[in-house]
């Protein structure tokens, strides 16, 4: 920490003093008043430039005299302003959407064309509202998670899986933030939809590596999603009516344009998969996004945002099942002066899972909730140096499970698992610095602290071993509990702290190409307990503590970036290597649900991932799209350690469940004319690792399968083609109502991609057979989208 500050002082004093003035302000969209994140603000014919921050704020300093300020943002017309600079200047800038170049840009994987080559930040993918709208929506609505899955380094376990995997990371290793609030489950209906309603989303950034120091708590990636602020110029309504779900969003100015709000709702038709069954079954979801903001004055702005989403599943009178995220955030933007921007956030988020099993007369609930305070500063020291610093604290409450009998005759007793508490804190500072014309660096340090708080008892095991290898039977078993230690609420069960250095460098080879390299060390104190082939909504989060250590990761990456043919095409090639220490895996037959002694089911292991990613994009013209290919490997190794024995799979490296050797995506969009545009996606992936039987035997009148070592086989290759067409009926220029029809076909050639293959006996013939679950065949959809 000290080192960094010393360095900063050194830097700031080494800059030659010169008469300079600061220009600062907010960049917004002219029609909606939405602030724009990542807009480029620079002084023409100089290297002085900056990108707007999350709240549209910029600050640059320029020498005295005439200067020409150019502000640009993808999909928007440039604004050029010339003025005589002889005092510090506040300048709010409005950009107009570039309507003549519809569909021009689908996605940008860097901040903006002018800056991407030279900025040290690498391995980041960014989508803005404008570009989101243009991504083909084969399932009837734009889904941001489905879109990022088409990019290199991002995969999931196929249809019917919750969450996503980044560069060989597990689902729980992604920090997913919606307006800074942690989202614990990103999927509706087991992954058929994401929890993000694109009508309410302004932009998102996915950091696959080179995670900036202001983020902490997860080792694999950060998905930073920001909600719209709401239109501050006029009332606006938008929505869509589709065959699978429908949506409606309303936004309007408040207090004479001093503020605005947005309310967006979305719901699926309750009985989504009902048709083939009788009326007793139902699956569905809904969600609601809310946000309001109010400018107290030029230097102070308040934001209040919230999200509530819920999934429901009903199975006659026997089961009812519901789960969802709830989050809220109150923010205060304060501009101390034209060089120092700050944001203070108070955040709450919760994920809970409820299950009622009427036939067994009990209810089950589990949840995780956190309160979070964050204070972030950005100090625009000078043209060459920007400093980010801040601190955050999170208080967690875990309810791993609680069972309530629902009738007097229930055979189940009331039971509550130990409630867990934890406190996580972090302070950070990072510097973005332009060392020379061609060379930029971003370096930072985060210090994180984690305290597993008392208020529960913790088991003490014989010989301190929660898991014991049974030498005779060759299996891992839960250890014997000797006694329990009670920890009072003000006592600490365990605490950890870690220094997490982050470094990124960029060297501009010439105007159109650059090389970058990055290193990041990250610590993760929470773990999602899951030993099923796919993560499920039922899975429970658990904090690090006496037995489960924090995951620690190092990631190294290098990349080459080039724009060619007059910026018509761009190429990005990145290579990465990542290792994670203390990655837990589960002993065979581990029972994780309703278990107070999770430590008796796990072994501490490690994981490693490496890969090569290619992304070739065409971002301009009637035809746009990209070609993405990833070659990668993800493995785990879990030794017996203190428990004894060789470990899982005899202590050898084995494939992680989300290892995909080849991952290819091709996405294209063709803008035929004002009325018609077409889109297509093609995906081809190595099948995911699975465990197949290698023998059978008869026991208790049943054929019992014996299995190979964990994850040593693979599902068949996954591939699919989607197409979509968008039709915009005749526009009447004076009519505010604008509508469009979107026709989509998912999985055009109706390939039955295996989500799973299970082995068992046919109930009629008793013959062994392999059963494939292929969740989606061909799915056509029609949606009518409108806004006015």
């Amino acid at each position, binding site marked *: 920490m000290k080192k960094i500050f010393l360095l900063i002082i050194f830097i700031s004093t080494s800059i030659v003093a010169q008469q300079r003035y600061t220009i600062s302000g907010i960049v917004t969209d002219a029609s909606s008043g939405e602030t724009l994140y990542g807009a480029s603000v620079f002084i023409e014919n100089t290297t002085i430039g900056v990108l707007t921050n999350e709240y549209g704020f910029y600050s640059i300093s320029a020498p005295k005299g005439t200067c020409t300020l150019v502000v640009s943002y993808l999909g928007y017309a440039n604004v050029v302003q010339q003025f005589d600079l002889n005092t510090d200047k506040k300048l709010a800038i409005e950009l107009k959407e570039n309507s003549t170049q519809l569909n021009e840009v689908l996605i940008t994987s860097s901040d903006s064309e002018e800056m991407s080559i030279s900025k040290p930040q690498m391995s980041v993918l960014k989508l803005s509202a404008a570009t989101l709208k243009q991504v083909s929506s084969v399932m009837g609505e734009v889904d941001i998670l489905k879109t990022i899955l088409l990019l290199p380094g991002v995969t999931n*376990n196929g249809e019917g899986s919750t969450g996503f995997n980044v560069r060989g990371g597990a689902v729980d290793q992604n920090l997913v933030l919606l307006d800074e609030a942690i989202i614990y489950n990103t999927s509706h209906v*087991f992954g058929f939809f994401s929890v993000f309603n694109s009508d309410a989303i302004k932009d998102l950034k996915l950091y696959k590596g080179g995670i900036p120091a202001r983020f902490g708590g997860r080792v694999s990636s950060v998905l930073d999603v920001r909600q719209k602020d709401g239109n501050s110029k006029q009332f606006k309504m938008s929505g869509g009516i589709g065959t699978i779900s429908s949506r409606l969003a309303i936004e309007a100015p408040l207090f004479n344009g001093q503020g605005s709000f947005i309310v967006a709702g979305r719901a699926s038709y309750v009985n989504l998969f009902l048709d083939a*069954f009788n009326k007793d*079954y139902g*699956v569905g979801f809904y969600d609601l996004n809310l946000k309001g903001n109010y400018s107290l004055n030029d230097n102070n702005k308040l934001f209040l945002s919230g999200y509530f989403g819920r999934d429901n*599943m009903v199975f006659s009178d*026997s*089961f009812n099942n519901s789960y969802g995220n709830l989050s809220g955030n109150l923010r205060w933007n304060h501009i101390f002066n034209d060089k120092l921007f700050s944001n203070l956030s108070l955040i709450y988020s919760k994920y809970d899972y409820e299950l009622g*099993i009427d*036939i067994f007369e009990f209810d*089950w609930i589990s949840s995780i909730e956190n309160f979070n305070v964050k204070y972030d500063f950005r100090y625009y020291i000078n043209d060459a140096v920007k400093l980010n610093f801040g601190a955050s604290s999170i208080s967690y409450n875990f309810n791993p499970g609680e069972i309530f009998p629902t009738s007097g005759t229930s*055979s189940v*007793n009331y039971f509550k698992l130990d409630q867990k508490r934890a406190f996580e804190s972090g302070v950070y500072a990072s510097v973005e610095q332009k060392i020379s014309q061609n060379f930029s660096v971003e370096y930072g340090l985060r210090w994180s602290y984690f305290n597993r708080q008392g208020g529960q008892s913790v088991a003490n095991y014989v010989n301190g071993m929660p898991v014991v290898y049974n030498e*005779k*039977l*060759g299996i891992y078993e839960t250890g014997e509990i000797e006694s329990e230690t009670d920890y009072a609420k003000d006592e600490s069960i365990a605490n950890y702290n870690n220094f997490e250095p982050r470094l990124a460098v960029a060297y501009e080879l010439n105007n159109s190409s650059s090389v970058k390299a990055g290193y990041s060390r990250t610590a993760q104190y929470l773990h999602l307990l899951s030993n*099923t*082939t*796919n993560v499920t909504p*039922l899975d429970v989060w658990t904090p690090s503590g006496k037995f489960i250590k924090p995951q620690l990761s190092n990631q190294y990456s290098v990349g080459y970036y080039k724009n060619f043919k007059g910026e018509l095409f761009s190429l990005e090639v990145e290579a990465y290597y990542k290792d994670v220490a203390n990655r837990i895996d589960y002993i*065979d*037959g581990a029972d994780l*649900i*309703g*278990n107070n002694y999770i430590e008796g089911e796990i072994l501490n292991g490690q994981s490693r991932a490496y890969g090569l990613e290619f992304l070739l994009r065409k971002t301009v013209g009637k035809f746009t799209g990209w070609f993405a290919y990833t070659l990668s490997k993800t493995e785990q190794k879990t030794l017996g350690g203190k428990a004894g024995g060789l470990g899982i799979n005899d202590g050898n490296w084995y494939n992680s469940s989300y290892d995909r050797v080849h991952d290819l995506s091709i996405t294209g969009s063709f803008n035929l004319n004002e009325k018609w545009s077409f889109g297509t996606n093609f995906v081809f992936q190595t099948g995911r690792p699975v*465990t*197949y*039987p*290698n*023998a*059978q*035997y*008869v*026991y*208790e*009148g*049943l054929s*019992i*399968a*014996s*299995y*190979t070592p*964990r994850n040593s*086989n693979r599902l068949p290759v996954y591939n699919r083609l989607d197409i979509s067409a968008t039709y915009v009926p005749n526009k009447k220029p004076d009519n505010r109502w604008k509508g469009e029809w979107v026709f989509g076909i998912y999985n055009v050639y109706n390939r*039955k991609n295996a*989500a*799973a*293959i*299970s*082995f*068992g*006996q046919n*109930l009629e013939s008793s*013959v062994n057979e*392999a*059963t*494939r*679950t*292929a*969740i989606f065949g061909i799915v056509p959809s029609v949606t009518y989208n409108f806004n006015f």
Partner: protein
Amino acid sequence: MSKLLKYSLLLFYVLLTSCTDVVDVDVPMATPKLVVEASIDWELGTMGNRQTIYLSLSTSYFENNKQNIVTGASVKITNNSTNQVFVFEDQNNGAYTTNSFRPVVNQSYSLEIIYNNDIYTATETLMPVVPIDFVSQSKNQGFNKDALEVNVLFTDPAQIENFYLIKFTSERILLPALFDISDEFTDGNQMNVFYESEDFEVGDAVNIALYGISKQYYNYIRLLIEQSSEGGPFSTIPAQLKGNCINTTNPAANAFGYFRLTQVSKVPYVFK
């Protein structure tokens, strides 16, 4: 308990069953190993002297002739307190029998099998069971309101950790149905287990057997039941089941199956 909770996932899987089909898959083939089905079950109210142990070899997964019987092995059980030895005679059909077994509750026994010059051993304790209180039938309960189910009630002894295996067999249904039960969340309560099938008709006979089992065997049978009944994208990653029959000559080639000793409460039931 966790199994009940997993039903919620299973339910979703049920919704997806229209998306399943049977496919051809190439699976690896392991070297055949000895399979020991040494289930010494002492039915309440009997002497428990007649016992059978079955030996076979494992086969490739899609082999239709599942039972590859083993003859010529020597099989014996020893009472670990009295050192009384019970020799099981080879019936040359994979079965090894004795008429002189003496079951004692909570008594530890050892099994020894010699086959192909390899010696396999196992040790287990004979676990007691409570009698079944009551058996009834119903139609409008359970998962399906139109299907018959048989309800089995028994009372778990309080303050003791108990594990049960319950087995239903019926001529109507080809495969036996097994359920593993722990009293972790139901200690001391009267427990109700039901077995339902759309195929049941009035007049069908169902045989019910409630076994008292050891914790070690519970861990084994729980995984066995889970792996032979689950499937789909939300199932646990399967693993090779490891029983308690150890090959002392070649530890890398332990036998499949289990040496268990239980008390069993059996009730036949006919749907009315």
